């Protein structure tokens, strides 16, 4: 009976189907990258060919570097993403610890209050958020973006981290208390290192949406000095829409950091999704 499911034609069929879909998934990305290294003529004459010595050209990238401040955009994206992740993890772990460790009046209510944001998108409050940022002079600062992304990331971070912190052994914490450690030291020295895998999961989950967001940079920080890479490439492409070399190169430039991040973190990301996400 067991043989039925794993006959050779079945496996071949599975490979064929998966390979076909893999081509569909990767083709557009590869096409953009390949053509960003070609001359304009070659882009149109033979879009599917790899660049060869005759058709190789970096003219698109030259335009990108001359006209757009891509390194500044990348730096802004990096600052916003790293700062947001840092505060999501720090504040999220602190709050998650309080909810998991102490019994106090309103504990469940607080957990519910903090969980609302898991399902309700923060974008719906945008108009009010902009008013706050205008009133506090934070428009066109990276701080505005960080504050919004931290608020956006906290609910799920607290939820995941408090689940993990419940599993840390009480004996360990009580031993610490007997040794006279303060609650703060117990959290930072004993508990935090033990939930490192959960911290990594939360970080990876939050990284991609923050890096890729277009909405808040467009509304809160559209100024030249604070453009993120996503917004910067969007604006750049809008201006150079007829310059195919420049557009393709800008797209490649924007893909590059995300591809690197994916190469580094894909195991973590996939493990995170496939371990705790479905409960």
């Amino acid at each position, binding site marked *: *009976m*067991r043989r*039925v*499911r794993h006959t050779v034609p079945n496996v071949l069929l*599975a490979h064929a189907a*998966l390979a076909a*879909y*893999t081509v569909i*998934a990767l083709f*557009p990305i590869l*096409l*953009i990258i390949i053509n960003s290294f070609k001359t304009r003529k070659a882009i*149109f004459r033979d879009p599917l060919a790899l660049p060869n010595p005759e058709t190789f050209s970096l003219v698109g990238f030259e335009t990108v570097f001359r006209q757009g401040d891509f390194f500044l955009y990348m730096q802004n994206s990096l600052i916003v993403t790293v700062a947001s992740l840092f*505060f999501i993890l720090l*504040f*999220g772990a*602190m*709050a998650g*610890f*309080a909810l998991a460790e102490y019994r*106090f009046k309103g504990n469940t209510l*607080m957990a519910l209050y*903090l969980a609302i*944001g898991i*399902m*309700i*998108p*923060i*974008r*719906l*409050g*945008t*108009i*009010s*958020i902009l008013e706050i940022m205008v009133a506090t002079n934070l428009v066109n600062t990276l701080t505005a973006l960080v*504050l919004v992304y*931290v*608020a*956006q990331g*906290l609910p799920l971070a607290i939820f995941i981290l408090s689940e993990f912190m419940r599993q840390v052994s009480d004996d360990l914490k009580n031993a610490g208390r007997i040794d006279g450690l*303060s609650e703060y030291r117990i959290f930072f020295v004993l508990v935090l290192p033990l939930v490192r895998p959960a911290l990594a999961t939360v970080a990876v989950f939050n990284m*991609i949406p923050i*890096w890729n*967001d*277009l*909405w808040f940079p467009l509304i809160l920080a559209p100024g030249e000095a604070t453009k993120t890479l*996503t917004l910067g490439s*969007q604006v750049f*492409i809008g201006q150079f829409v007829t310059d*195919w070399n420049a*557009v393709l190169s800008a*797209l490649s430039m*924007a893909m590059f950091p*995300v591809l690197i991040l*994916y190469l580094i973190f894909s195991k973590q990301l*996939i493990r995170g*999704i*496939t371990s705790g*996400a*479905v409960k």
Partner: protein
Amino acid sequence: MTSHRRPIRWHIGIFLAPAVLVYSAFMIFPLFGTLQLSLFTTSEQQTSFVGFDNFRVLFGDPRWSGAFWNALVNNVWFFVIHMLVQNPLGILIAAVLSNPKLRLRGFYRSAIFLPTIMSFVIVGFAWKLILSPLWGIAPDMLKAVGLKFLFAPYLGKEEYALTTLALISVWQYVGIPMMLIYAALLSIPQEVIEAGEVEGVTGFSAFWKIKLPLILPAIGIISILTFVGNFNAFDLVYAAQGALAGPNYATDILGTFLYRTFFGFQMQLGDPNMGAAVAMIMFLIILTGVCIYLFGIQMRMTRYQL
């Protein structure tokens, strides 16, 4: 020394404070602020309370209602395509991938998930170039398989543009249902499958009769994630078609409608109060969906104890 009251445990407050402050100030408070804005109107620097008038205008006033209903109907269609294409496709890929004896599983999984991590800006423009009649990649490839007659400037035609955009979004996000279903399938114990095999239930019918009922909770989760994501979508339409969601508003969804209402476009000035009303409608739609999921589906769903 008679009082046995516990000392106030300040550390609990200190642990909670930063998260609660940031979350309340930039998430909860703005939601209420937006609700409040939606009940007022501003003319000549004067703000006055108008109750639900903004909503009445949105639903019934000919200056607004046409655009609003158009965006809502488009958004519903956008969601329907995701439910009909993205989620079944994700389940299918996951089912094929979950065969433990298949080689290269990790490679397929990572490759199919790759588009999901790209920004909508990249994806929107990439597909715009590919589908562009100027570049000619799409028509040439269709020609190669003898289907050239199928080609049309899909993003430029009113009747195809929205469906095309929805399919691009499906292409990008199919990785999420795939991963979640894949994880759910892996968590089914081998004994359950083997018990089925002893009874002669194998292959496709094993999937249909044994595995599918067991992964229903995961299907519920991907459905609600899709719902929230779709009714809050903006980036792809903005990146591929601009704020005007062309051609002729054929790809306008609530997110782009909100953006234009709030910021204004072409000759029309932005109106924060009407924008807040649009945001509140999106909020109610999403809240309704989440409540139906939580109370109607998740609580009634039979959970098989594994």
